[in-house]
């Protein structure tokens, strides 16, 4: 089974482990990811706070390239890229002039026919039953699934899962034997882009989040967004300082957790790259 | 004995008084009223069977109160469906059967109007060649040319009302031409009277005409009157949301409306 693949900058940079785990999981479930040739950055939060047309052209160019390679579907593991690409496709579909203008800027024909899937949608669509059969060592831990903001909002555009209480990650995790906790911070913000400029706010927001997970007995936090992962994992010292207590819960990508359950070696899944070490197995 | 004849004989034996069908005429099939099993052998069915038998269904003198069967072509089926949507068909007195299109002579009897409607859903209403040529010619004309073309055509009308007699959906006991208080339409064939008659007939066909072409065939002086209602049928079907050749449920496209009907001339 072949499907278009758009890694985005984070998967090539700070969250290489997410990329490794997606690819490793891919060939374990014989899903072949074919990268979009000459892909460019999606602009993330930076672009749309600076220049509207730039924030539409960057994702549009990626979609145009995918169309040129005539993919009908592409997988976008990073939540921010997934959000930007889908919002662009939605906005250009609403407004003919804008669509014409944007395809002029990127000097490529843009039709907007490619279906964009985030990693949860891709797994639900192609792998949910094969995963259950292929589990060799079940992930016997209670976990708190954390969706963050960009996977589920704005609902009108993304139309993905329940806005306030999403369940897609929970279903995948319970398919591999995990005990998913019902907790209140599933879609609360982790601090996002303030990670560098206002680390104090990130430590407060992520701190509350982690505290609630720990109080409810979570042994790991499962995420599907590089931004959330870096705030919860990399900023752990500041968080512990803010909370005044040491929280050692590791933060895993869902693809890593499923990979472990399928018996793939931790190195291949980039488990070693985390700041808070993963001593679950 | 082919299947059609078998069917006719079995129907006649089971109490049906009359079967409307076709028999061999000099130029192919022509209408035939079969009353006895012996005549059943005369019944035939081929592509010359174009006269619309539905016209006879509404003649009480012919139908009476007992059971009648009709060997229906596609056109007749469409007419029956439309007549049923206008409460003109007594289903208990009418048995409708047709010869399937596979060409192996199989007979298919319909249980009722609904089955006829569903049978017709995938049957495309084809466009006659004559219509295409005229439409081509007329669309090139200016308004004034169209006007003189039609005034000339209508002036040839002799008000024989054969078009009204041939059309299965023209079943009013007293037609508007017979109304004399007020005298809507001149009874004698004046050019204006002829035009007003045709405009009225076509307006009465909006959303009802099934494009069977019986009117054009019936006109002794060869005025292409079928073109008018067929063009209205094609042009307005998409706008009024009906499928040419299929009956609408509860009301036709002129007795109902949609709040979002589109037009560009009321301002």
């Amino acid at each position, binding site marked *: 089974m072949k499907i278009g693949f758009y890694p985005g900058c984070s998967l090539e940079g700070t969250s290489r482990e997410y990329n490794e785990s997606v690819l490793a999981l891919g060939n374990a479930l014989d899903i072949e990811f074919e990268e979009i040739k000459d892909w460019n950055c999606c602009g993330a939060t930076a672009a749309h706070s600076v220049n509207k047309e730039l924030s539409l052209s960057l994702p549009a160019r990626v979609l145009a390239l995918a169309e040129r390679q005539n993919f009908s579907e592409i997988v976008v593991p990073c939540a921010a890229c997934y959000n930007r690409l889908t919002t662009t496709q939605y906005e250009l579909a609403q407004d003919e002039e804008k669509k014409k203008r944007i395809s002029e800027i990127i000097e490529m024909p843009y039709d907007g026919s490619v279906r964009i899937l985030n990693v949860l949608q891709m797994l639900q669509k192609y792998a949910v039953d094969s995963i259950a059969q292929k589990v060799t060592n079940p992930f016997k831990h209670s976990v708190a699934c954390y969706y963050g903001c960009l996977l589920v909002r704005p609902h009108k555009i993304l139309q993905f899962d329940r806005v306030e209480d999403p369940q897609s990650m929970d279903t995948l995790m319970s398919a591999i034997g995990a005990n998913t906790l019902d907790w209140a911070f599933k879609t609360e913000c982790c601090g996002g882009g303030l990670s560098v400029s206002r680390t104090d706010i990130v430590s407060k927001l992520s701190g509350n989040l982690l505290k609630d997970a720990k109080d409810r007995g979570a042994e790991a936090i499962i995420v599907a967004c590089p931004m959330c992962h870096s705030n919860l994992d990399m900023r752990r010292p500041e968080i512990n300082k803010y909370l005044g207590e040491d929280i050692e819960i590791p933060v895993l990508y869902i693809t890593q957790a499923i990979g472990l359950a399928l018996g793939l070696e931790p190195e291949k899944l980039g488990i070693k790259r985390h700041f808070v070490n993963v001593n679950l197995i | 004995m082919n299947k059609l004849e078998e069917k006719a004989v079995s129907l006649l034996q089971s109490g049906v008084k009359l079967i409307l069908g076709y028999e061999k005429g000099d130029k192919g099939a022509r209408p035939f009223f079969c009353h006895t099993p012996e005549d059943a052998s005369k019944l035939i069915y081929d592509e010359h069977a174009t006269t619309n038998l539905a016209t006879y269904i509404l003649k009480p003198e012919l139908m009476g109160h007992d059971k009648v069967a009709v060997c229906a072509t596609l056109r007749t089926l469409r007419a029956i469906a439309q007549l049923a949507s206008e409460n003109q068909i007594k289903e208990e007195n009418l048995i409708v059967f047709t010869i399937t299109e596979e060409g192996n002579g199989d007979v298919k009897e319909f249980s009722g109007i609904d089955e006829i409607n569903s049978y017709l859903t995938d049957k495309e209403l084809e466009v006659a060649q004559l219509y295409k040529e005229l439409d081509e010619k007329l669309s090139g004309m200016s308004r004034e040319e*169209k006007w003189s073309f*039609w005034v000339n055509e209508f002036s040839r009308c002799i008000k024989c009302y054969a078009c009204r007699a041939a059309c299965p959906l023209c079943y009013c006991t007293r037609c508007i031409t017979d109304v004399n208080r007020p005298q809507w339409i001149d009874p004698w064939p004046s050019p*204006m009277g002829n035009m007003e008659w045709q*405009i009225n007939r076509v307006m009465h066909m909006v959303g009802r005409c099934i494009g069977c072409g019986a009117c054009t065939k019936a006109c002794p002086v060869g005025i292409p009157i079928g073109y008018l209602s067929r063009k209205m049928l094609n042009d*307005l079907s998409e706008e009024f949301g009906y499928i040419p050749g299929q009956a609408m449920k509860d009301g036709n496209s002129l007795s109902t409306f949609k709040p979002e*009907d589109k037009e560009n001339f009321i301002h």
Partner: protein
Amino acid sequence: MDNNESEFEPKIVAFVCNWCTYAGADLTGTSRIKYATNVKIVRFPCTGRIDFMLLLKAFANGADGIIVSGCHPNDCHYTSGNFHARRRWIAFRHLLEIIGVDVRRIRFSWVSAAEGAKWGDLVNETVANIRELGPYTEYTKVAQYVEKEDNNE
């Protein structure tokens, strides 16, 4: 009827609904807005009541132009009379176009009971258009065909 341009006084009949456009025309009166005398109003209970044959009769009897006006959609006193009328005019106007009747001479409009000024403008505008189009002899020639048969004009 002399035919040179400036002398031609078009004969225009207006079919209007009693609840909206007729009341609108009343308001034009009470606000003393002046308009051309060529238009004469026929009152109907609703635009749904206006029979398309009456338009043909108007042309046949020498009308050079016709105004048909009633309530705006959703304003109809009888809830749906104007919707039915609109559906009828879409079909009827299309048929006239096919036959070649000069549909520019029929002006369809919505005028509410509060739009007195609009009625005045509508009348003046229509009279100007019809004066420009000239008398509709094309139609009346066919209508009066028999009376002039002996001097076969």
